[in-house]
């Protein structure tokens, strides 16, 4: 293990490829790089991509469906542009960071490394305990449209990992296999594992500063950037919304538009009361995740990849009882109903803002929202402009026209018939 101050700095001309995975503090790290580009460039480090993270490029080379491309893989051009930028960078060291890379299979990983030049690429994997990742990843999936309840999802992930629910979870989060996959692509001596410190999230930033040779304290995440996990009222409201959304038979694209790029973002900008319930993982799942964490830690230790931080911390489980008793003691004074109503109003507002109906009126501009990879397009203004009963609002204009024509024709025929009989 190489844990000291020296020896962390990667050689000049290195491309540091941070592949996540998801829910390991990537947003804080990326926002710190993105918001201090000039300072970082001056210190000899180029942060690749125009936005906070080049998610579209990562999805393009790994062939993953992307919410930025209507659920399809973005054009390969996105990735090629990024590689061109990396090749043209004058700074001695380049950082490319997107958790989108963690979803790559062996072939995808090999392509990424080949395009970035295997001799110059250093893959960095950031890790957190599975027990912390589980609730965080679940609520992220709900933001993406999943309807499965937490307990049921945990059962599927931990007891029936070959099932159809969230099949991508273990590709990201079986971290020993993830490290092995990228070691196969880049060479094990080109893979670094950074184990986070659950008590001190800033430590990860310090490690990255040392990896690329930035002055300590250069990387500071934007304070306003909230990629926080949703609370129980928030996530359960979204989940119920997803159920209703599916029942209406609506498209994934529309869901991306109104939830991912609308309601979910607005919800995360709420400041929930500290007593608002947080997602709690049941004891059996914590136990099981701790066991798996041990196997993952052992696998990584045996892989020969460089490890920064304490692998043993991956087997940690938070004490479950404490948070719950504290919450229930205070619940009397806390107005749960008001919290739900507020969540509901935020959800409704998110839907309206993303629909474009209120775009000129928003105090907070759409462009100011910290989208990961650029401001999403909102498309044309929605068609509706009048008072309609809900039953009619659900009927498409062509169908409405058809019904009307049929009815008027029917009425005309009925009027004609007695006239004929008379004549």
């Amino acid at each position, binding site marked *: 293990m190489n844990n000291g101050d020296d020896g962390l700095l990667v050689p000049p001309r290195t491309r540091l490829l941070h592949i996540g995975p998801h829910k390991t503090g990537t947003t804080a790290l990326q926002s710190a790089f993105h918001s201090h580009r000039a300072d970082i460039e001056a210190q000899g480090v180029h942060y690749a991509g125009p936005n906070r993270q080049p998610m579209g490029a990562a999805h393009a080379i790994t062939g993953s469906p992307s919410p930025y491309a209507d659920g399809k893989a973005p054009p390969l051009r996105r990735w090629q542009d990024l590689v061109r930028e990396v090749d043209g960078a004058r700074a001695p060291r380049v950082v490319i960071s997107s958790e989108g890379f963690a979803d790559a299979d062996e072939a995808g990983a090999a392509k990424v490394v080949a395009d970035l030049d295997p001799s110059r690429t250093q893959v960095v994997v950031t890790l957190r305990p599975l027990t912390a990742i589980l609730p965080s990843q679940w609520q992220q999936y709900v933001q993406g449209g999943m309807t499965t309840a937490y307990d049921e999802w945990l059962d599927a992930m931990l007891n029936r990992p070959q099932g159809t629910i969230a099949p991508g979870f273990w590709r990201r989060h079986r971290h020993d296999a993830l490290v092995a996959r990228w070691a196969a692509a880049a060479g094990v001596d080109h893979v670094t594992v950074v184990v986070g410190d659950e008590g001190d999230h800033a430590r990860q930033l310090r490690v990255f500063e040392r990896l690329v040779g930035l002055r300590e304290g250069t990387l500071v995440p934007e304070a306003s950037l909230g990629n926080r996990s949703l609370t129980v009222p928030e996530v359960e409201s979204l989940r119920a919304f997803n159920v209703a959304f599916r029942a209406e038979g609506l498209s994934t694209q529309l869901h991306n538009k109104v939830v991912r790029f609308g309601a979910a973002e607005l919800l995360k900008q709420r400041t929930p009361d500290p007593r608002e319930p947080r997602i709690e993982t049941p004891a059996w799942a914590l136990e099981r995740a701790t066991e798996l964490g041990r196997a993952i830690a052992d696998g990584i230790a045996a892989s020969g990849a460089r490890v920064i931080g304490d692998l043993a911390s991956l087997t940690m489980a938070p004490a479950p009882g404490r948070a719950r008793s504290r919450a229930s003691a205070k619940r009397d004074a806390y107005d749960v109903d008001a919290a*739900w109503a507020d969540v*509901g109003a935020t959800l*409704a507002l998110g839907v309206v803002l993303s629909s474009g109906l209120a775009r000129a009126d928003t105090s907070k501009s759409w462009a100011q929202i910290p989208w990961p990879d650029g401001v999403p397009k909102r498309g044309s203004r929605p068609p509706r402009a009048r008072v309609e009963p809900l039953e009619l609002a659900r009927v498409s204009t062509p169908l*409405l026209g058809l019904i009307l024509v049929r009815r008027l024709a029917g009425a005309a025929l009925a009027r004609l018939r007695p006239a004929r009989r008379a004549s």
Partner: protein
Amino acid sequence: MTDDGALRLPEGTRLLHIGPHKTGTTSVQAAFHAARAEVAAQGVHYAGPNRHPRQAAQAAARTSLNASRGASRAWSGLLREVRSAPGRVLISSEWFADASDEAARDIIEALDRDRTHVVVTLRPLTGILPSQWQQFVQAGMTTPYLEWLRAIFDEPSSGVGRRFWRRHRHDRLIARWAAIAGTDRVSAVVVDGQDHSAVLRAFERLLGLTPGTLRLENDRANRSLTLPEAELVRAVNVAFASVGLAGQAQLDLVLFGAAAALKQREPSSDLPRIETPAWAVARAAVVAGEIVAGIRDAGIRVDGDLERLVERAVPASERASARSAAPARDAAGHWPEIVATGAIGVLTAAGLVRSAGRVSEVRGFSNQRLRSIFLGRLRDAAAIRARAGDRTPSIHSARVEVE
């Protein structure tokens, strides 16, 4: 009480039902709309193409500051229809109750004073209070219930107070219309809180219809919101107002969106209802006493027992024991669905759920309604195309006032 025959209005009468709001008007209107053919066969015409001629009545009552041309056309069209109808005619809208004296006089004149009879439906104030509050909330109000009650009773001449009492000081409402139409040309019907079909029987008596001609329609869409639903809608109003979505946009997205979607669901029986505090119930009982005395003095015809309009406050001790006997009402398990329903309602009203409609759901709407919506959509689509690139929102078109 008089026997049925004595209540029947003369042949050729135009019966003007003026509400007021929250007195079962939708039940009456839905029943007549559904039974158009049956009542016509018995010589009664129900005026207007839809369930409720709201636009026409709003134009006639001149309540809206922005009475559109379309609305005044709707009123003159309704008048033409009334004049050409043989036999008895019913015109029903709670919006007539909001008419100024001048507007009321014009309405009576237009309908022909000698042939017009005004009917007012009445319900205890204690029942009207929560019902009217949640209706105002659906129409955009953000004031919490207790604060609103305080304004009603302590500042009756404030804006909020005047708006409420103009409709619901029922003795004065009746006196206003009696002064214009004549005391012998105004009737009151006391609505039974338990038996919702009783009001239909009263209208059958007035119009000489065979008892049972009118049937209660499923009017879930007109139910009151439960407390958590109303609180959600109120929070949505606050949030929408914070980004400048008010007025017509609020009505489009909330009243015709979130609230409409909520009302389409059958509310679970364990959801908390809007509860009026004992002090307000007591104040309402005092006012109700004055209202009953005032109606007695007016000398109009009354169908039903006026005493039922006065509901005494239940002492706190009895309320507490009733509450402990009943299972506790808790919204907790219902919140996700309530929130999701509201959001889907907004999404639908925003016109983003155009694919899910079924032809069968359209059955209840008149050709005229469908045509105006269809043409309106085409116009809007053309306007949107013409304005492509314009950044100002424009979902303000047809103007209505609804609360």
